[in-house]
Structures are given as C-alpha cells and as structure tokens.
C-alpha cells in the first residue's frame, strides 16, 4: 500500500525548549485510519502541525502525497490536508455557518457560483444545511465541529487530521462526530489521522501509533496495542473499557485467551459463554 505521508528522521524543538522529536520516523498508509495516542505533551499535536506545515521543521523531511512540506509547497500541501482542531469555538471564522464553510473556498479564490454549490452540498453532507443562517453563538460544540468538518469537505482533501477534535464534546457528540468522519472517509476514500486521548476512539482505528516524550514507542493494530496493558500503564494511558472488563473477569476466574477485544466481539464472547453454561 502506498504511504501517503512519510515522516523521515525529523527533529524539532520549540524555542528555548529541549528537543521534542529526535530522529522520529513514521509512515501513514493511504486510506487507513491511524490513531496517534500519547499523554499530554508527548508531541502528538506538534507532529500534526509539522505535517500541515504550521510549525517549521528543523531537520528531516516530511512528504505528503509526493510533496515535500516546505515554504514552496505549503499551499498545495494544505490543499491535501484538512484539520479539525480541539476547540470548536476557535476554528469558526465566518460570521454564520454558511460563511464559515465558504472561508476556505474564498481563500482559494473559488468562483462565487461554484462556491454556493459546494457550500450547499458540504453542509448537506454533515446535516447542517438547515442551520446555515445560524451564528456560532447559537450552536452546540458538536454542531460547530460538524461545520468545521463541512468546511474541510468543501475543499475535498485527501487527508483529514483530527487534532483531539472530539475532546471537548460530550460522549454522544463525540460518537456522532466520529461516525460522521467515518462516513465521509468511506465515501471519499480519505486517509484519517486521529490524535486522541480517548482510548475507545483509538480502538476503532486501523492502526495505532503510541508516542511518548517525542518517541514512537509502538505501532500496531489496536488489538495488539491494547493487549499490552502494562506498556499502556507505564506511559500513563488507560486501557480501553473492554480490556478493563476482560481483566476484571480474569480476576473472577473467567479466562479469555485474548487480552483485548472490541465491544462487539466481547459481547459475542460473553453471550456464548452464558449460553454454554
């Protein structure tokens, strides 16, 4: 499979601070959902900013879909990547929902007629067309994130980066946004990088990369990553709910030969267990 993003031996530090990344390398496959997990300050968000050229690299290379991330290519790279940030309030530029979705299109000097078409279809895509006249003050956090996603869909990127995009939402809103991104990913054959604290969000990914103090600790499918509960505990991350349940069952003497299952498979296993008795 093609690597749509290649991060090669990068080093980076913020001014007057020690090296955050030292010779970090990482690949993102085209079409996958990659979860980046790690504690606060582990460098996850900085990595996302480097990929989008929002911070400037000191050493090493980042290649996005064949383009080096540098001053010259910056706008082309940003055409390929859509980012959703943590705080819904701070990425709402337009005065109304419609204007906000149009913001990225205006930056690219899209023709007005075309712009109205794209805004309409993007907002319909995220079920926010009925809210087009609303000002951000009259929207919930989840609705604002939907608008942010519409703004990205409008630019038809190849990659979506969710930078803790669901961390300020309630559980229902979180699920809602994740389902929406999944839907859009499938429809438009996108690659998704989700930077998250939420282990259950990461458990739904195709692949998980664990970052701690700017170093890649592990990368594998979620089943493997979340089986290693010791490693997770060591770097201060909670095991997913299902892993905790399996561990609790084990303490009661109910043994499952695997250490991690997603909720559906776990439910199936418990049902089987009950019916066998």
């Amino acid at each position, binding site marked *: 499979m093609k690597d749509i993003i290649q991060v090669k031996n990068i080093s980076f530090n913020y001014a007057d601070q020690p090296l955050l990344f030292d010779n970090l390398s990482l690949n993102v496959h085209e079409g996958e959902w990659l979860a980046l997990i790690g504690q606060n300050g582990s460098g996850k968000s900085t990595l996302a900013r480097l990929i989008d050229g929002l911070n400037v690299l000191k050493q090493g290379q980042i290649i996005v879909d064949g383009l080096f991330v540098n001053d010259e290519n910056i706008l082309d790279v940003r055409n390929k990547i859509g980012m959703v940030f943590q705080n819904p309030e701070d990425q709402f530029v337009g005065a109304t929902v419609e204007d906000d979705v149009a913001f990225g*299109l205006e930056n690219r000097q899209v023709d007005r007629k075309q712009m109205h078409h794209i805004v309409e279809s993007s907002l319909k895509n995220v079920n926010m067309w009925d809210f087009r006249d609303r000002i951000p003050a009259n929207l919930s956090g989840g609705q604002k994130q939907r608008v942010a996603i519409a703004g990205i869909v409008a630019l038809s990127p190849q990659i979506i980066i969710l930078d803790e995009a669901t961390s300020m939402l309630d559980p229902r809103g979180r699920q809602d946004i994740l389902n929406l991104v999944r839907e859009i990913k499938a429809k438009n054959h996108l690659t998704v990088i989700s930077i998250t604290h939420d282990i259950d969000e990461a458990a739904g990914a195709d692949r998980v990369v664990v970052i701690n103090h700017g170093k890649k600790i592990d990368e594998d499918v979620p089943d493997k990553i979340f089986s290693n509960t010791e490693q997770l505990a060591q770097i201060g991350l909670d095991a997913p709910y299902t892993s905790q349940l399996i561990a609790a069952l084990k303490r009661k003497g109910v043994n499952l030969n695997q250490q991690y299952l997603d909720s559906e498979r776990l439910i199936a296993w418990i049902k089987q267990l009950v019916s066998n008795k």
Partner: protein
Amino acid sequence: MSNFLFGRYLPGNSWVHQMSPQSKLMLSFYFVIVIFFANNLASYAALAVLIAIVILLSGVSILFFLKGIRPLVWLIIFTVALQILFSAGGTVLWKWGPFSVTNLSLINGGFIFIRFLLIIMISTVLTLTTTPLAIADGVQTVLKPLKKVKFPVDTLALMLSIALRFVPTLMDEMETILNAQRSRGVDFGSGSLKHRVQAAVPLLVPLFTGAINHAENLSTAMEARGFSDSEHRSKYRIYRWQLKDTVSWLVFLLVGGLVLYLRK
C-alpha cells in the same frame, strides 16, 4: 452591550430590509448631513415625514424605535437644556444668574430635540434592518475606492467581521468569569467607584488572556484552511445595487433639495 450589537437586528423582508447595505449606509450618512441643513419648521417637517415613511416601509414596530432612544435620553435632555438655558437673543422670558430662557432659545431647543430624534431614527432603521455582517460588507464596498491608495480594505472588513463574530463568545466568557468571581465573594455592583474599578481588574485579566488564546488558535486554524493574505480572496456574499436602492436615493435626494429650498 450584546443587545446593543446583536439583539437589534430584526429579520424581515421589507423594502428597507431588501436594500443593499452599502446603499443604506451611505443613505444614512447623507440623511444626517441633510438634517444639519434644516433650520425651520417646514424643513424639519419634510424630514420627519420622510423618516416616518421609511419606518413604515421597514415593517418594524415603532416600539423598537422608542427603545433605541432610551439609552440616549440623558444626553438629549442635557444638550437640549444647555441650548435652552444658554443661547442668547430674542425676548427674555425668565432669568436667573447666568441662566436665561428666551423665546428663541426655546425654539432652538425644540429643533435640537427633533434633530436628535431624526438621527436616532435613521440609525435605528439601519441597525434594525441590516445584520452586523451585512454592515461590515457594506463598509467594505463603501471603502473600496481606497484600495487605489493601497488601503487594506479587505483586511479591514475581515477584521471587522471576525471581531463581530467573537463578541458573543467573549460576552459568554465574561459572564462565566463574573460568576466565578462572584462565587468567591467579589461584589461588582456596589461600593465606591474606586472599589468597583478595582473589582473589574480580576475580571479583565482572564478575559484578555482568553481573547489572546482565541486569537492564536484562530490564526492557526485560518492558516490550516489556506488563508495567506486577505487581499486576494473571492467573496461568498455579494450585495448588489437594486432598483429599490435607486428609487430610495431619488426620493432622498428630492427631499434633500426640498430642505434646501424650504430653509430660511
């Protein structure tokens, strides 16, 4: 304050609502200038009739206009009182120390009062029938000629619209900070002026920190969405000059001419 800026716009589809914001903006300026040419009953009457028609055409209840006057009541009373008590000339009706009331000063006071009323009415019509965003766009259109002298008109308009967009956000935050401080026993409402100013400091510091954080995050988000320079962007919204604008201007120009003819 949030009422002052946002609660004022009343959605509608009247003649005045449908006019383009740049035309309404210019027309309001023009009207205010004309008001200062009026100097007798006939010329003021002509302007009053015009504004009455405009109010009728806006489809907005007169109550909203009366509300618009309320915050300015003291300013009006003060100015009118000064005019009445201090202007000289005419027959003296009442005199006490430096104060005197003459028949001329009463008439002048009355005119000043009408002048205030007319200015408030026209600006209220503007804000009640035009969204803040449309006003920002109107400003952009009106200032467009300044682009020739390299004045960053589009940047100014974008700044204005972002500032307007963040007013409710900062209002909310101020409310939260106020409540947080109140819950710790800070009293904002009473005490001497000095005390109240002191109480405002712990309010402003977190508000400013918050605003700076917003600005930083917003600029990153704007950059990520391909923003590089505000002078080279296409526009999503456009407000075209319409027949209604032309007709309104013709009527206003006619009344302007009438005022010049009627004045002493």
